[in-house]
């Protein structure tokens, strides 16, 4: 890298001086390099501004309007939020449905994908094939997965009830019974665990063998090595998958839309499905914008809470470099 570019970066890091002045002070070659950098990142930045930040900001304004997409928006102050919190039973219901889904789907998916990653981290012949095999479902388009799972949950001829029959359990109407539709969705969610699994696998492969060897020498058994080496070393990845999992499950839409269309009896009326219906089916776009911002804040608060209380438990190796206590972690 050019010396001057390095200098620029250093100055940027220090944060002193005006940006344009710094830019003007560069040599022509460094300036050209900087320009090229801006040009290369501009599609991503423009895309973010035009397609994400722009609509988000417009949605802030729309949240305070009564807008049916077609006529001009009418400012209604806080009316959308008042309706939402005081009158709209479906707002609370869809929020509860989404929360209920998240509270089980995220931990089960995390544990499942982590265990799967550990299994696929072992040294067995044809392991790349196994890894591909377990990762493939997460690449399957949701529509195709839904078709498959509808067959699995078929009350008369599905695979799920076949297994139930084999062990003498009664027939279950998975997708039409309000009591069973959620377990059905939770199980189906594990189908996509491959995405998190591959990240876990990468993390597990990054754990230095030396740590395991040292732990073994110090007398740690398998559980000790898992508890005091594996878990701390991959804790940033667990944390990452937890956050991403929560964000994704709070935004769940497609499966509810395609599998059950929110039924039976609104049992799978997820928050975003309800938002979509308000926006595009019932022409309540202003209200839908308000719903979207409330969801944003709910996810933000939950994420902040997790960062504050669970984030403390995450072990970042570089923070502990040279810390003598870390060396003895597994003995504690």
């Amino acid at each position: 890298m050019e010396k001057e570019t390095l200098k620029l970066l250093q100055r940027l890091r220090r944060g002193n001086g005006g940006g344009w002045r710094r830019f003007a002070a560069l040599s022509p070659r460094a300036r050209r390099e900087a320009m090229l950098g801006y040009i290369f990142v501009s599609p991503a930045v423009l895309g973010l501004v035009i397609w994400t930040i722009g609509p988000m900001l417009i949605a802030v304004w729309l949240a305070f309007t009564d807008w049916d997409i077609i006529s001009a928006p009418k400012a209604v102050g806080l009316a959308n939020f008042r309706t939402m919190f005081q009158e709209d039973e479906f707002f609370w219901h869809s929020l509860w449905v989404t929360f209920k889904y998240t509270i089980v789907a995220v931990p089960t998916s995390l544990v499942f994908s982590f265990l799967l990653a550990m299994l696929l981290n072992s040294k067995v012949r044809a392991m790349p094939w196994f890894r591909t095999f377990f990762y493939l479902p997460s690449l399957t388009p949701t529509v195709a997965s839904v078709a498959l799972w509808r067959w699995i949950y078929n009350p008369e001829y599905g695979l799920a009830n076949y297994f139930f029959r084999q062990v003498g359990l009664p027939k279950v109407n998975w997708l039409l019974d309000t009591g069973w539709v959620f377990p059905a969705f939770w199980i189906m969610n594990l189908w996509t665990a491959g995405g998190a699994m591959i990240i876990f696998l990468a993390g597990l492969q990054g754990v230095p063998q030396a740590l395991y060897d040292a732990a073994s020498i110090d007398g740690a058994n398998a559980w000790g090595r898992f508890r005091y080496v594996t878990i701390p070393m991959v804790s940033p990845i667990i944390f990452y998958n937890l956050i991403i999992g929560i964000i994704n499950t709070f935004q769940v839409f497609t499966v509810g839309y395609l599998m059950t269309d929110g039924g039976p009896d609104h049992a799978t009326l997820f928050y975003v499905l309800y938002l979509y219906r308000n926006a595009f089916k019932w022409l309540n776009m202003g209200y839908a914008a308000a719903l979207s911002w409330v969801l944003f804040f709910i996810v933000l608060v939950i994420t902040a809470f997790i960062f504050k209380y669970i984030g403390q438990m995450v072990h970042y190796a570089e923070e502990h470099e040279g810390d003598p206590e870390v060396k003895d972690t597994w003995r504690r």
Partner: protein
Amino acid sequence: MGSHKRLSRREFLQASAAMMASGAAGLVHVPTTLSAPPAQETPQLVFASWEGGITRETIEQMLRDFTDLTGVEVTHQVPTESYMEKLQVTAAADQLPDVFYISKGFIADWAEKGLLMELTEQLGSDPSVDMADIVEANLYQINNHFFAAAVTTEPQVMFYSRDVFDDAGEAYPPASVEEAWTLDEIIEVAKRLTRDQNGNHPGEEGFDPDNVEVFGWEWWNWIGGANVWWMNGLEFFTGPDLMTVNLTEPSVVETYTKLSEIPTAHHIAPPAGYYDQMGFGMTQAQARGQIAMITGANWLLPEIVELEYSVGAAVLPKLGPEYAIWGAGEGLSIGSTTDFPDEAYRLLSYVAYGDGTASIWKTGLWMPQLKSLLADPEKQQTWLTEGVHPEEYPTAACIPAAHYMKNDPMRKGWQEAWDKWIGPAIDSALFARRPAEEVLAEAEAEANAFFAENPPWIPA
């Protein structure tokens, strides 16, 4: 390429400047042309639909015929994915097509917002079509103000397998409204037609509901929608002010209770998920002799013809003292912002009431929208096709379509109330998840509170 002459920097800049200049000149030129008063403006219409396959080809041929006839150019737009969402965006941008398909759940809302051109005057004075001859259910109106035609006529029809009836030694179902079975009668016949792999029928000792070879009646749950009210001589709304619905009339509750017993007590219909497992639809199941009667609509005919089995047409059973069927045809409207209202109406009338779609009528997929074409035996012969339409079709499908077909209420907020309370309540009652009386009473209270807060738009 090696043979190409390499441009110098100066030549490159000159060429770029020339291109930019000509581009800018073009941009300046465009508004000049558009803003200049046209000497002889040729009407150009945009027609939007969601059709695909052979229907799309027929529509496009019909549009070409329209151009030949009138000199009006028509462009066909087919945004097949998320059609209504895209149409809403074009409406927001004041760019609605001139003539377009519209899901009927949106018509009342769009009419209120002034997006749809009112058709009342044109329809009343159209010399090419007698308004009294149009099937009433196909005219989307609010207080006699018309805002949409139907794309086509889509009546509910029952189809039966002659072979299954012959094998069981049963008489064919009635093909005229006057002779329609009651619900009890069709259940009894369906029980006799239903048999398990040992030849036992429902209600007989040893009948195995898990191994049924032939089902009597695929009742399909959408016969349990509005038909229940209409056939009991009721409407969803208690009055023309469209303010309150009556979902708890004893005859309605009784009918739902009876319908809910079809899957659980009588075992005459395929269970949930039957087709998913088999990997085919109900017409294929009927073609294989696995279902005697199916409740569907006219648009099943092309599939039936393709499957080449011996099929008959019958009327639906009566769920109450009256006979009524649901018309599923979606809307066809004109955008209020069209620059060519007369030409747009002419196109709408040509599509809906002309014979441009006769080739689709002949496949069974669509049906005419004029009562005379549906009910007059002589005119029926101009489109009913041997080998496509079963011989009972004139009385089993055409007459009911002309005289007994009804449609959903045209009321702002109806779709939302249906999605939130009425539809799920009916679903719950039909599948016996909760007692019909209880679930319908709850839905009625919720829907009426919603309607009270959202009064309908009724043009004077």
